[in-house]
C-alpha cells in the first residue's frame, strides 16, 4: 500500500465513563470509497467528527499524507463534508452556497462563477443556481450540499449519513450517482452509514464498528462471505447461527455434530477434535426440500414474500429457528405455515466464527 492519505492511530475519545472511540487504528488509501458502518452508538459518527476536526481526540493521532493534523481546526483541514440534514445556508442562494468555500478562500469572482457552474453541472443542478435552498426538495438539497462540498477540490470528502433523510427510491438513485461521482473524480470518500445495503452497494472497503472499536474491515464480499464474529455476521445481512462440536476429520474437511445431527464442514480455519464452534449460515445458502430430502427435518413457521425472493422461517425439532431465503421462481415446494420440510446446506456454506 502506498502512503495512506489519512492515517488514524490509536484514536480514543471518552464521554464520561464511556469510550466512544476505543483505540481505533485505520489507514485510508488515496481515492478509496471507505464506509464506516455500525449501529447507533457504535462510534462511527464520533470517528467522522474527529476526522473532520469537530471534536478533539483524548488519545491518538491523525495524519494527512504523513503530516500530523491532530490539533488542526476543521477550517484548515480542507475536507469537504456532507451532512444528513443537508446543512445548506438558508440565507444564501444555491450559487452562493456552492461558492461559499471559494469565496472564503478569496478566489477571483470569475473563477468562482466558473467552478460553481461546473460543480452544479456535475450534480445536474445547473438550472437551480438562483433558487433558495428552501425551494428545493430533499434530494435536490443534498445534491447542492454535495456540489458545495466538492467545489473547492477537498482532500477528502466526508459523508455523514447523507441519504438517510431521503425516501427509498431516491436513495437508490443517489447511491448510483455517488458511486459514479466517486469514480469520475477519484476523490477519497469516507462515508458513514447504519444502512448495510448502502455500505455493501457502494464501498470499496467497509469498517464495521461496535462500541467504539473496529470489529472487522474488508471489501463488501469479504465481509459478507467471511464475517469474523457473530456481530458482523448478524449486522451485515442476516445469518443463522449453529452451535456445533467437531467430532473428527482433518482440514479442510471436518466432521461436526449439532443437536444430534452429523454434518461435514469445509473450512480453512484450524479446528480440533472435541472443539465447540459457532457457525454462521446465510439464509440463501440454506436449501429447502421435501421431508427426508435434506439433512434436518423442520416445519415451516412463517413465510414472507419479498418480490424476487421469498423468506421462509422454519423451526426444527427442539425449537431452533432457521431463516431460509429462496428465489421466488422455485416452485418445487410452495412453503406455507405448518408444512413439513427439511433443510440442508453445502459443506462449505457455514462460516466458523471467532469465539466472542
Amino acid at each position, binding site marked *: 500500500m502506498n502512503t495512506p492519505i489519512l492515517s488514524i492511530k490509536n484514536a480514543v475519545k471518552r464521554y464520561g465513563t464511556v469510550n466512544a472511540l476505543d483505540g481505533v487504528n485505520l489507514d485510508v488509501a488515496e481515492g478509496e470509497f471507505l464506509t464506516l458502518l455500525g449501529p447507533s452508538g457504535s462510534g462511527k459518527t464520533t470517528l467522522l467528527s474527529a476526522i*473532520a*476536526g*469537530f471534536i478533539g481526540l483524548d488519545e491518538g493521532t491523525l495524519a494527512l499524507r504523513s503530516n500530523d493534523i491532530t490539533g488542526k*481546526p*476543521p*477550517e484548515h*483541514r*480542507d*475536507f*469537504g*463534508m456532507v*451532512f444528513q*440534514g*443537508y*446543512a*445548506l*445556508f*438558508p*440565507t*444564501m442562494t444555491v450559487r452562493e452556497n456552492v461558492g*461559499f*468555500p471559494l469565496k*472564503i*478562500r478569496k478566489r477571483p469572482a470569475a473563477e468562482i462563477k466558473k467552478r460553481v457552474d461546473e460543480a452544479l453541472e456535475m450534480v445536474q443542478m445547473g438550472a437551480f443556481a438562483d433558487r433558495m435552498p428552501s425551494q428545493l426538495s430533499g434530494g435536490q438539497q443534498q445534491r447542492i*450540499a454535495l456540489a*458545495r*462540498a466538492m467545489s*473547492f477540490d477537498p482532500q477528502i470528502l*466526508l459523508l455523514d449519513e447523507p441519504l438517510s433523510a431521503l425516501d427509498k427510491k431516491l436513495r437508490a438513485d443517489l447511491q448510483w450517482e455517488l458511486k459514479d461521482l466517486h469514480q469520475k473524480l477519484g476523490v477519497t470518500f469516507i462515508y458513514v452509514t447504519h444502512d448495510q445495503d448502502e455500505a455493501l452497494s457502494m464501498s470499496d472497503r467497509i469498517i464495521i464498528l461496535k462500541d467504539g472499536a473496529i470489529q472487522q474491515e474488508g471489501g463488501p464480499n469479504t465481509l459478507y462471505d467471511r464475517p469474523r464474529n457473530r456481530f458482523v455476521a448478524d449486522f451485515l445481512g442476516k445469518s443463522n447461527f449453529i452451535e456445533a462440536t467437531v467430532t473428527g476429520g482433518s482440514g479442510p474437511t471436518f466432521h461436526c455434530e449439532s443437536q444430534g445431527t452429523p454434518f461435514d464442514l469445509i473450512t480453512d480455519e484450524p479446528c480440533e477434535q472435541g472443539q465447540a464452534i459457532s457457525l454462521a449460515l446465510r439464509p440463501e445458502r440454506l436449501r429447502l426440500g421435501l421431508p427426508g430430502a435434506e439433512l434436518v427435518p423442520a416445519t415451516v413457521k412463517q413465510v414472507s414474500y419479498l418480490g424476487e425472493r421469498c423468506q421462509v422461517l422454519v423451526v426444527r425439532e427442539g425449537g431452533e429457528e432457521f431463516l431460509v431465503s429462496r428465489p421466488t421462481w422455485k416452485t418445487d415446494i410452495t412453503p406455507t405455515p405448518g408444512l413439513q420440510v427439511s433443510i440442508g446446506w453445502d459443506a462449505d456454506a457455514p462460516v466458523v466464527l471467532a469465539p466472542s
Partner: protein
Amino acid sequence: MQVSAFRIFFQTGAWLVIAFLVLPILVVLPISFTDTSYIGLPKEGLSLQHYANYFSDPDWLGATWTSVWVGLVVATCASALGTAFAIGCWFLSDRAAMVARWVLITPILVPPVVQSLGFYRFWVKLGLIDTHVGVILAHTLLALPYVSISVFAALTNLDRNLPRAARSLGASVMQTVWAVVVPAARPGIATGFIFAFIVSFDEIVGVLFITVRNVQTLPKMIWEGIQDNIDPTIAAVATLLIALTLLATAIGVLRRS
C-alpha cells in the same frame, strides 16, 4: 347562512375586548383638538393650537429629539449585545442557553421601581446621574432581554450542523458567525431593534430616578406637563404618537402582504 349562537357570542366578546383596549387611547383624540387652554373636551369648536404649540416649542421638540436619538443608540447597543449573547448561547449547549436565557430576562421580571432605585444608587457612585450616558446605559440594560429573546427565537430552528458545515468549508469561527449565523438571525435582530427602541422611547420610571434637569425625554416631559400645568399639548403629542404607531403598523402590514 345560519349564524350560530356560539359564533355571535365569541364575535361580541372579541369586539368588547378590542373596545376595552382601544377606547381609553382614543379619548386623547378629541382632547387634543380642544379650544380650551386646559385638558377637556372641545367647547365651541375644534382647534389646532396645541399642535402648533408642540411644533413651535423648543422644549417639546428638544425632548422629542432626545428620546429619538437616545432610543436609536439604545437600540443599536442592545441589538449588538443581545445578538452576541444569543448567538454565543446558541453555540453552547441547549442547557446552558436555557439557563442564560432565564438570567437575562430578570430585568423584565424585577419591578421597574426596584430596578430604578438600583440604577439610582449605582449611578450616583459612578457620577452618571443626569447624563445621557447614564440613561443610555440604563435603557440598554432594560432593552437587552427583548433583543436576546427575539434572536433566540430566530435561531431556535436553525440547523446546528450549519457552523460545522461552514467550518469544514474553510470558514473560521468568526467568518462562520458573520456569514452564516448572523444572516439567519437577522429577522430576530430587526424585531429586537424595534422593541429596544420602543422600550427606551417609552421608559419613564428610570428616567425620573436618574435625571434632573439636564436630560429631558418625551415621556418625562409629558409626565411633568401633567403635574405642573394641565396643558392639552400633552394630548396633541399623544395623538401624534398614536398616529405614528398606526402608520408604522400599516406600512409593516402592507409590506408583508
